[in-house]
């Protein structure tokens, strides 16, 4: 799938949750949203894209979540 588009979508999701002053809640919201609404292949490709050096322009919440909550975001094998 188009990784740039996935990155844009992730960024927009994060922009919503980023408004929460509680940072843990913001990250929970972002990660939970991906898990609840994104097909596994979309999550895998987003993570792979960022792992491969993509998404440097994404807001911190996206990058932090991929770094800190990778196991939660990726589907069980």
């Amino acid at each position, binding site marked *: *799938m*188009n990784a740039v*588009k996935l990155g*844009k*979508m992730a960024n*927009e*999701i994060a*922009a*919503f949750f980023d*408004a*929460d*002053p*509680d940072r843990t809640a913001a990250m929970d919201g972002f990660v939970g*949203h991906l*898990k*609840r*609404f*994104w*097909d*596994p*292949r*979309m999550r895998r490709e987003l993570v792979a894209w960022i792992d491969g050096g993509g998404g440097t322009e994404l807001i911190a919440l996206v990058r932090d979540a991929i770094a800190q909550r990778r196991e939660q975001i990726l*589907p069980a094998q």
Partner: protein
Amino acid sequence: MYSIGHPDPGTPIRISTERVTLMIDGVSVNVPKGTSVMRAAAKAGVNVPKLCATDSIEAFGSCRLCLVQIEGRRGYPASCTTLVEPGMKVTTQSGKLAQLRRGVMELYISDHPLDCLTCPANGNCELQEMAGQVGLREVRYGYAGENHLEAKKDESNPYFTFDPSKCIVCSRCVRACEETQGTFALTVLGRGFDSKIAAGNTDFLSSECVSCGACVQACPTSTLMEKSIEERGQPDHVVATTCAYCGVGCSFLAEMKGNEVVRMVPDKAGGANHGHSCVKGRFAWGYATHKDRITKPMIREKISDPWREVSWDEAIGFAATKLRAIQAKYGPASIGAITSSRCTNEETFLVQKLVRAVFGNNNVDTCARVCHSPTGYGLKTTLGESAGTQNFDSVDQTDVMIVIGANPTDAHPVFASRMKKRLREGAGLIVIDPRKTDLVRQPHVAAQYHLQLRPGTNVAVINSLAHVIVTEGMLREQYIADRCDLVEYEKWKAFIASAENSPEAMEAVTGVPAATIRGAARLYGQARNGAIYYGLGVTEHSQGSTMVMGIANLAMATGNIGREGVGVNPLRGQNNVQGACDMGSFPHELPGYRHVSDPAVRTLFGDAWGVTILAEPGLRIPNMFDAALDGSFKGLYVQGEDIAQSDPDTHHVLKALSSMECVIVQDLFLIETAKYAHVFFPGATFLEKDGTFTNAERRINRVRKVMPPVCGLADWEITVRLAEEMGVPMQYDHPSQIMDEIAKLTPTFHGVSYEKLDRLGSIQWPCNDAAPEGTPTMHEQQFVRGKGRFVITRYVATTERTNRDYPMILTTGRILSQYNVGAQTRRTKNTTWHAEDLLELHPHDAEFRGIVDGDLVAVTSRAGETVLRAKITERMQPGVVYTTFHYPESGANVVTTENSDWATNCPEYKVTAVQVRKTNQRSAWQYEFDENLQEQVSLLPGGDAAE
């Protein structure tokens, strides 16, 4: 005339806790205070003759036929305008009354053509019936005097005629237009003998008339008469069913002659419409028998091959083999399905079951993805249920209504009439819309505040309104304390009270003066009952879900949820948007909005179906397109939806469809998506099948088969056959059994059955042990989620920006006479009113570009270009243009982009940066469209290429 055989008590029902007992012709009768003597008589089994009275409009007292005698009173009062009083003794039949009534009838008939035997109303004419009832035997005045018998018939309207020679000037049509429809198109011109009914000073078609047909229904003679009755005669039987157009979900009586529809009459017993209708529901059903219907299954290997008509067995076998082969080659998740809001609950339930139990994945989505998916997300998050909170009748108790991003007079006309009635009674109105919609100002209706915001700034406006509520002390603190999550509330309150959300700070963003926002907030915040109604102008934005939550925040903050007259009310676009969502059409939810990650729910369905349900969400429609282009999604079953026309960025959609190996389309016509299909299953219209639709107020209505399916199978049977062919039998003999399964597996539907629907007429879910007859108003004691949740709704501007190349904003919508992609209404005489999609633009923008009305104009965005005719109107604000998407050749979605709502991927149809310029030819895409159309038609059986 209303439907044959239905009693008409003459005046509207009255609701009162006080009762009145009186005697009518020696019979004691007890009725609510305020009831007319005529209606009380009807209850006592006494039919008083009448002509100017009917139960859908207020009494008028002009025909003088319903005279009665009342003990202790002088004269002969009209029973329609005389209200009951305790102890009243009424006589409806006497020698003197008979004499008076005959005299009145004699005068009417002296100026009425005596052509009863050839009159289309013969057999269903109140004038004829009353003449018989009063015993008219002669007309002493003769017919030679001055009369109206030569008055010219107006046949301009495509659906009904107006024959003034048969008019008795009872004014029922004028009053129906005013009271029922609220358009005020008709009037009585002249006085005395010269009185005549007129649609202004013009014919019906050129007038303000919106062809709702309320006047035709109210007419007691054949003065206003359906052309279908003129052509086919009176019906021989009637079947109650539900309209297949918008989300109002009007109940209808299909009047039949054998298997042919003669007339559709809105059912007075209909809970949503109470006997009213619009031009689509009442008249635009001719598509069902249109010559374009495809009635035989067809298959082909490649989309460039000619279609081959085959048997159902071969077509279903071909489809099943293809789908299984794709899964074998590309994996189980490489196929999926799309359900439609135009299909029944039962059909939709079966398609998602097919995906989950037969395909073995969760790749099912529905067209609500592109309309109200943010409603599902936003209301579930804040209130706990993905549905509107009220019934339509609730508006009668509303003191202030906010209408946001909705144009109900065009898109939900029957409910708009109810709104207008309440507004005429004095309710306040705030309209939030970039355009000056009809509700902003029309006869006897005007918005106190029109917040004419810039497209894409909804969230900024709703936050500003909430800011005023919070900072000016209009919060309902006790309500919030009792019913809401206070931790989340405090976070929201601090956010919304910050200066960044003030009307003054947001004015530069929204374009709405701060004083206007403050005034509107005060009007809503101080209302006893404030209700919010919204449409796709809320959801189809990059912040669609945020806006829905902002609306819920505002309603909770002002205590406006949980009783009649208030609430958050999404006006659903299509007939079964609510139902399609309820039935588990989304890739993350099983029926009843239960997430696939919930093991208990998966076990429930898995055990019932004998399969394992996957715990991970599947692909949404736009994700399906992207996955198709990356090669991981290859097969699609589309039931009743035209994604190639209705979804955004047409180039992208067509490329995705072209890359698939098996596209199965189940539809009535060769729709745009069918041009990219390998299998065509001919579908059935709503007239050809049994089932249920669920409207915008959660009302489950029965759809009843009035004629056999022309293609041999109802849609649900096709899905069952496909499942069986793929190796998973589904055992149903009738859609009622599918509903039984839905009820068994879905808590909000536990109490629903066809037997109960037949008994009650309709049911608003939740319907279960706690609410065995349904739930008109939700969240009465507490929110479904427990505590209502306030959500921080920060305004984030869309990434779709104007610049020097694309300086204007295009926003899209719909109009009264056409429906969605137009596949149905374009095949009716509704094209009389709207034969093509137009581009509306403000006079300043037109002048700047040298454009005059009717010019061809090119509309160019970052996604593509199309050409439309210009319509210059001050409804638009400068810098904003508007079009509809009812005609595929218009290419509205060639221009719209892939931008979408952050939470749901609902497309941002309402904001596309464009340039508009005058041109003299169609766009390159439109020439390609023509060529493709020609080619695909030639590939149909009987087409050039097929021969």
